[in-house]
């Protein structure tokens, strides 16, 4: 399953939006979920709440998006000790 943040309606995402996204997430039996970060500026609190909510349902979270957009997302995961379960996707063609 792929979660596209820009489909949640706003470019800027706070933890309030994380709660909304998690509440609206459909049932899914897959072991991992991809999160597309493009066109979204996410606050650290948004990412932290999203990660914890997603990891209650999935084994791994794969971060999609351009490298500069992934940087904060990866730092937040690392600071929470979730670096082994929240990982950046390999660049396309690389």
């Amino acid at each position: 399953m792929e979660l596209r943040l820009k489909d949640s309606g706003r470019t800027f995402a706070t933890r309030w939006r994380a709660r909304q996204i998690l509440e609206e997430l459909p049932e899914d039996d897959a072991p991992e979920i991809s999160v597309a970060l493009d066109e979204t500026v996410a606050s650290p609190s948004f990412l932290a709440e999203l990660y914890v909510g997603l990891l209650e349902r999935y084994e791994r979270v794969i971060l999609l998006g351009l490298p500069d957009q992934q940087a904060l997302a990866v730092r937040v995961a690392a600071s929470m000790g979730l670096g082994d379960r929240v990982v950046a996707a390999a660049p396309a063609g690389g």
Partner: protein
Amino acid sequence: MSGPLLPPTELRTVADLAFLSADRRAGDLTIDLHDVRWVAPAGVVALLAQCLGAQRAGRRAAVRLPRDPAVLAYFDRIGMYDELVVNGWSVAPGARAPAAYRIHHHVPVMRITDFAELEEMGIRLEGALRAAGLASLIEPIFTVASELSGNARDHGSDCYAVLQTHTGRTSGTPGVHLAVADFGPGFAANLRPVLGDLPPEECIARAFEEGITSHAEPYRGYGLHHVALAIGAIPGATLDIASGGGLVRLVGSRLDARHFADLPFTVASASFPVPLPVSEVGHGAAPER
């Protein structure tokens, strides 16, 4: 009734806001800005938070407007004048200044009452920074603005936020300035149940550590840590936070904490002294003469 609160003639930094602690928090609140010649963004949001806090406590709040036309024009441009008048906090509502004053690329002062408005502020912030040629600052400044404002919202407080760019032609620091103020319980009141009876400045300082929070959820306590990282990533950037009798200043990775006046609100002021495009030089700073 208490006498009017008299500020220094220039409200440039968070440290200049100590005069607001003289409010006895009973009877009417009057703030006399008549002789003020400079108000930085931290002063804008702090004055509004003080008035809103007084109003919420059932007190009448009134601000005597500055006589300096440059400061009045700045108030007009940044939206402070309207906020004072709309809320009935202006002593002389007819004293609007001519709109000759120019300040480029700003987000007018906003009262943020929910997270949707906080995200709306992000959109305005992006517009201001893109117009100033500072798109690379969108993420770190949104991190700072959203985490500081979001914490206030989580504790049930409205907050005021404002962002502006300065050219620094005549004075001021070139770059981007952001300020947020709220009248929530503050760092010390929130964190003492977790950290123990520490001085307020130490409570603020500890809040920057990973995982320090008054909330039980495992995802809480990381926002301010990443605010510190955002400040540290931009050379010369600073963050000042005053809350509950403590004042913390973060410059790069260095954090200084000291005792300060016990303000009835929490105020945070971030400065990003990045050079502005050459085309910006020569336009208005705040306030410019």
